[in-house]
């Protein structure tokens, strides 16, 4: 039982519980639509609803057939491969470019800092559909439409702002005299960057990379505009699956994606703790 301070009257208590249950309500609103997918993906029937057997927890009502369906369908396999292929290379590109940009922007001598920052972050703010339309026309000129390279570049552009933000945040706590110390000991700027700066901003770089990967992994608008049939990604496949062949395969894929996201979130949290520990050491 909740212990209230002695001065709490009836209305205080009522307010307390009202706030608490509203919070639970909001939490449920956010999470339930996602959680409901998980049991449905194990449905033995090709329906999007709970069968009587499922509600009675009859083991016969559950199966892995939709997971098997993913493996058996070469479209899904291609989509998964594409998603990882495009995601990984877009992440590498976004991480390298974003980190370099953040380091440059952190220099006290950098002119037009705010303007450049705003430009670099714009892919986060400009509506995706506008970027997609712009890229579509731009890419046709350079024969990039319908190619892996085109999608990788496009997704990297979306991921760069996340890397810039996370790396900038880590750099704000970075002591510039460490960089000077490296130089004074005879290490070139590049060597100092590699040996001193990179290890210390690594948590920011890694979490930025994860954001960039998730952005690419879950992106559908650019893919709709720019991808040819060969570059179908998971979201694109789900999108068409939803219209063409309605069966719980999508739910099985969604469940797997939830699993991947949880893994990402957990590793992000571990990284955050690690970086805090590193900073704790600094002072």
């Amino acid at each position, binding site marked *: 039982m909740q212990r209230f301070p002695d001065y709490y009257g009836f209305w205080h208590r009522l307010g307390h519980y009202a706030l608490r249950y509203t919070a639970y309500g909001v939490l449920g609103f956010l999470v339930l639509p996602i959680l409901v997918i998980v049991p449905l993906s194990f449905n033995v029937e090709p329906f999007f609803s709970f069968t009587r057997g499922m509600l009675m927890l009859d083991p016969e009502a559950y199966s892995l057939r939709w997971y098997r369906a993913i493996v058996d369908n070469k479209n899904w396999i291609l989509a998964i491969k594409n998603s990882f292929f495009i995601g990984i290379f877009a992440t590498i590109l976004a991480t390298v470019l974003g980190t370099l940009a953040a380091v440059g922007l952190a220099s006290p001598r950098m002119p037009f800092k705010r303007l450049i920052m705003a430009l670099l972050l714009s892919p986060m703010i400009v509506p995706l559909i506008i970027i997609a339309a712009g890229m579509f026309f731009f890419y046709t000129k350079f024969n990039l439409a319908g190619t892996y390279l085109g999608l990788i570049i496009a997704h990297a552009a979306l991921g760069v702002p996340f890397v810039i933000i996370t790396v900038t945040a880590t750099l704000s706590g970075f002591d510039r*005299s*460490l960089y*000077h110390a490296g*130089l*004074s000991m*005879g290490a070139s700027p590049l060597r100092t960057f590699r040996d001193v700066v990179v290890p210390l901003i690594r948590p920011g770089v890694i979490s930025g990379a994860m954001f960039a990967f998730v952005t690419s992994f879950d992106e559908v608008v650019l893919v709709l505009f720019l991808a040819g049939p060969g570059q179908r990604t998971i979201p694109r496949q789900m999108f068409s699956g939803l219209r063409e062949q309605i069966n719980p395969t999508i739910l099985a894929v969604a469940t797997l994606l939830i699993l991947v996201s949880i893994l990402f979130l957990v590793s992000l949290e571990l990284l955050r703790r690690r970086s805090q520990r590193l900073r704790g050491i600094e002072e």
Partner: protein
Amino acid sequence: MAADRVDGYLRFRNVKKSYDQKTLVVKDFNLELAKGEFLTLLGPSGSGKTTVLMMMAGFESVTSGDILLDGNPITRTAPYKRNIGMVFQNYALFPHMSIAENLAYPLKVRKKSKAEIAERVQRYLDLIELGDFGNRTPGQLSGGQRQRVALARALIFGPSLVLMDEPLGALDKKLREQMQLEISRLHQKLGFTVIYVTHDQGEALTMSDRIAVFDRGVVQQCAAPDVLYEQPANAFVADFIGENNFLPGVVTRREGDWVRVRISGGGEIEARCADCGDVGSDCLISVRPEKLFIEEAGHDYDNRFGALLKTRLYVGDFIRYFFELDDGTEVVVKVLNDHAAPELSMSEKSLLLSRRRDCFAFARK
């Protein structure tokens, strides 16, 4: 004393620095340093001393002028090619490396052999009395230990010069004094050349061969600690170093190095002329509290003037008397607490005495 062997190992020639192309932060800095000398740049914050150090290290560009190290201009040499060690105020130890790795870093960069690195790291760890601490990380050390590591790291590669930027600023008083001794000990043992920046005059006086006192981008005086304290070149130095009394007055007679000054508080004082003007010009007389004496018989003093006792401050090893002259000027007298300490009652007119060689006359601006 190192101050005597100025052979121009390090030379600043007409060095100027401006950040905005308008105001000069460092105005025409000239200095020569002997090999093995310990030079301190002393001054209030914003006086340009740190800027000089940063130009020396190569982290700031020189607006005009030259810096020559062992005869070679280094003004256009990249910082990492200057072979200059640096100790930072916040230690700047690499938090992701162990103490031994920190010390090894400058040697690794210089591609020394593994065996040589290991041997030298251990030797320097022993030198700073942290022989068993090689495997710890900087976070596991105390402030004083970290600064010793930072010092060793700046020395381990045998730099031609070591720069120290307020290295003891983050330590408490007791540790600071220990570290002063430690730095002096290492300096005497290894004989490296140092430029040391601080705003703490105690630190400067105890450690340096010579001190350059900075104010508003200009070196006010560059001399050995005792000269700086006992023969200040101008009123700024007299005020900045140690404690001083200042008595306003007018020059009435001038004879070579000596002047006679009529002070506004009443009476005449004979003083050594530092940078005072001719007869009739306004000046300031400075005399240190411990060089003033309260009315004693049997001694021969050059100057004597009357003052009223206002307050007496018992400090322990000495007593501080606050007097007031007729024009309201406050004069402090420091008297050692021994049997001869005079018993004075408040608001009693006393005679203050001083030798003329302890009094200095400065121009009053």
